[in-house]
């Protein structure tokens, strides 16, 4: 099939370096991938086009890029799936990382953040003579996260990183979870302190972009949520994030629906005057638009059923000691 690739190019050695679009028409096999098409361009039309690629089988993590605006592995994306009715397929470097040349981004900030989560196993006590005993389920659960190929797709499309470069980001935090969830790892409390800091687990806004674009089913956001629970289970509850979570839960358990007036008050504290003053403009705008929450918050009918659900979850958690959001390893 014939396809037009519209590639965002950048030559740092140009007199005035500036990114620009360039179109290439290329013939690929019907099952061909975007990577096949790009390689064909590079080999037959324009050798100056720079990109990283190697394995062609979604495992080396080199060829993440934005295809039609969303991060993906070029070697896993079939041309036929993205070339809609002869429209050109746009190809850009990953987002949230500086560009070196064409589709080649600078991954230094990416790896710095991965290194910052202490991405290595920290065991305690003398090593066993043989292997650590572990359940197959625990190891398979880890394998679901180990599946991460560090391609940077999640970081590319992370909406928090767009506005806050300090956020550790989905890839590093998924890696962090991989150790937190490892039954052999003994550095839990130290890790939780680390991940609880500014830029850590609480900075995710749960936008789902990373889950959507991850080519390996790692679901980084779910791992971040699981880390939040672990952080709180380790007694680290003195953050706005943790208090927001607790307040949210309390309110729902109490009345079956969100009390938008008390949620910020409980999160920030009734006596946290500077923060409450900060919130005033929002409250005033809401009032002006008649969207302020009622002062008298009513429970929903049948709230006792909600309470029963909470009780049941409580019992289940106590039963097997598992944290609720830790999902089974991703299935293909």
């Amino acid at each position, binding site marked *: 099939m014939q396809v037009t690739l519209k590639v965002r190019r950048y*030559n*740092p*050695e140009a007199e005035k370096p500036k990114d620009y679009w360039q179109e290439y028409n290329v013939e690929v*096999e019907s*099952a061909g*991938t975007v990577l096949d098409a790009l*390689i064909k361009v*590079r*080999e*037959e039309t*324009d*050798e*100056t086009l*720079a*990109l*990283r*690629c*190697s*394995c*062609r*089988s*979604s*495992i*080396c*993590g*080199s060829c993440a890029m934005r295809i039609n605006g969303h991060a993906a592995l070029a070697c*896993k994306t*079939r041309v036929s799936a993205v070339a809609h009715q002869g429209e050109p397929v746009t190809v850009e470097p990953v987002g949230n990382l500086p560009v*070196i*040349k*064409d589709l*080649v981004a600078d*991954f230094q900030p990416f*790896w710095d953040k991965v*290194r910052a989560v202490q*991405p*290595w*196993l920290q065991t305690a006590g003398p*090593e066993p003579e*043989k*292997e*650590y*005993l*572990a*359940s*197959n389920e625990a*190891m*398979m659960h*880890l*394998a679901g996260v*180990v*599946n*991460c*190929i*560090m391609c940077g797709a999640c970081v590319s499309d992370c909406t928090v990183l767009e506005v806050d470069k300090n956020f550790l980001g989905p890839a590093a935090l998924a890696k962090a979870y991989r*150790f937190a969830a*490892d039954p*052999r790892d003994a550095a839990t409390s130290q890790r939780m302190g680390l991940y609880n800091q500014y830029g850590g687990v609480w900075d995710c806004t749960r936008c789902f972009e990373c889950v959507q674009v991850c080519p390996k089913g790692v679901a980084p956001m779910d791992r971040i949520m699981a880390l939040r629970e672990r952080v709180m289970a380790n007694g680290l509850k003195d953050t706005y994030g943790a208090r927001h979570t607790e307040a949210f839960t309390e309110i729902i358990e109490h009345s079956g629906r969100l009390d938008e007036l008390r949620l910020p008050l409980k999160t920030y504290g009734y006596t946290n005057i500077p923060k409450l003053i900060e919130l005033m403009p929002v409250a005033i705008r809401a009032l002006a638009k008649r969207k302020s929450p009622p002062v008298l918050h009513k429970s929903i009918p049948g709230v006792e059923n909600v309470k029963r659900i909470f009780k049941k979850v409580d019992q289940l958690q106590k039963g097997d000691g598992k944290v609720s959001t830790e999902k089974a390893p991703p*299935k*293909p």
Partner: protein
Amino acid sequence: MASRAAERVLQHQVVVLGAGLAGMRAALEAARAGADVAVVSKVFPTRSHSTAAQGGINAALAEDDSWEKHAFDTVKGSDYLGDQDAIEVLCREAPSDILELEHMGVAFNRKPDGRMAQRPFGGAGFARTCYVADITGHAIVHTMWEQLAKAGVRVYDEWFATSLITDDSCCRGITAMELRTGTIYTIEAKAVVVATGGLGRVYQPTTNGLICTGDGMALAYRAGAALQDMEFTQFHPTTLKNSGVLITEGARGEGGHLLNKDGERFMAKYAPNRLELASRDVVSRAEQTEIDEGRGVDGCVLLDLRHLGTKLIHEKLYQIYELARDLAGADCTKEPIPVRPGMHYQMGGVKTDANGAGTLRGLYAAGECASVSVHGANRLGGNSLLETVVFGRRAGRAAAEWAHEAPEAGPLSNAAGRDMERSIRELAGRSSNGDRPAKLRWELGTAMNSLAGIFRTGEQLAEGVKAVREVRERYARVGVRDHGRVFNTDLVAVLELGYMLDLAGTMVAGALARTESRGAHSRRDYPKRDDANWLKHTLAVYSPEGPKLSYATVTQTRWQPEERRY
């Protein structure tokens, strides 16, 4: 690290070329031995091709298994060309190295008692392949990188090696190009460990990644080191038709069947005892025979996993489920996957002893680019990951020890770097009238595949020698169209093609000379193994006229050659 940055000379005691499993393991060991070590790799470590290893890693862990059984299987698999002293080292040290990987954090699958699970693999008399689903190489690579990061080992990633510097047959360092700036540096070292992996791109198609261009083998060869057994190239029995991408042997280890167009499990005719789990050379030849004799399906045979059930496939073979779906459009829980044999692994490489030492002082090699030789004429599945950790460790240790002992040779000038800079600038500035490098690589690869394939004849190989020579002549005028300095992948492709042409020359020369069939080297005109004349290693040494061949004895300790049956 010291440096004379202005002169672009960097200094380390040990330089490891390549950051796949063998390279990272070597660097880690050199660091543990107290050496100032740096890794130089053309890609970030986790992008290395070790990550594509799927099925597993072998060790005799079970009580009723033994390292001797593992060693015998390996010797037999090698068609008796493996050096038995090295194979003994490999198999004796396997359990502790794999336990170390587990202690480092590799999430190996478990048995119900919590111990590591093992699956059957080809050519093995025992289920001794440890695994992480079908992402074993990937899981180990990332764990090894974690250890490297923890140890704070310096990695020059995205640096492309351009030469080994030698002085009086002693390795003194390397020159390399920092891809981000295009700058050539000289890195001085007492010892260099070459761990650059395979050369799959010499063939078209291949399971290997685009980066597998045999760089370190070629640089060692150019520097005067001997390459060993280069005619032995493994064709993996199960690769996807169009892309050549690998489908793990673990698929057959878990019970998958190979069928021809009549739905017959044809392996019963070729290997009545081990069927689909005969050694790879045997299975690949059987498949090719079925295809050649008209019992294939569209140039393929069928890998049938349906009877394994959806649950097993999703738990233990999920990567290949995705690959078959994404690249071949086949749902392997519902239909067989069309597969064919494809170039996968190079048994030959830089000749080393069991400590990784090459034939030049200060030069070491480990992993696929080395020939210790533990694989001889045919490698068993699950032994290559094992080789990377056992011999990576040993080479790293030996390199560090040599670096401590080696006499001071005085500082290296940056002459080598300057010369390299000049010749590369010349190349990069060359007019672009010649052939495109990709076209030449394609011609080389398809010629190698048809003339030095699963079955080969003297006539084909002589033609192969000519084809390599002809491509080489055109290579002298190859065009470079990217004249920039920053991340110039066009220039890199041209340099890589030069490496591959050198290696292809040694491969066809060795194959033409070896008038017997042994392991993966299967001559239609000499269909029998000939121990009287050919139970010996081929050595290839560089000369301006082409590779000079000589031969070396195979070390035998306790196993006498027997006829090989599966």
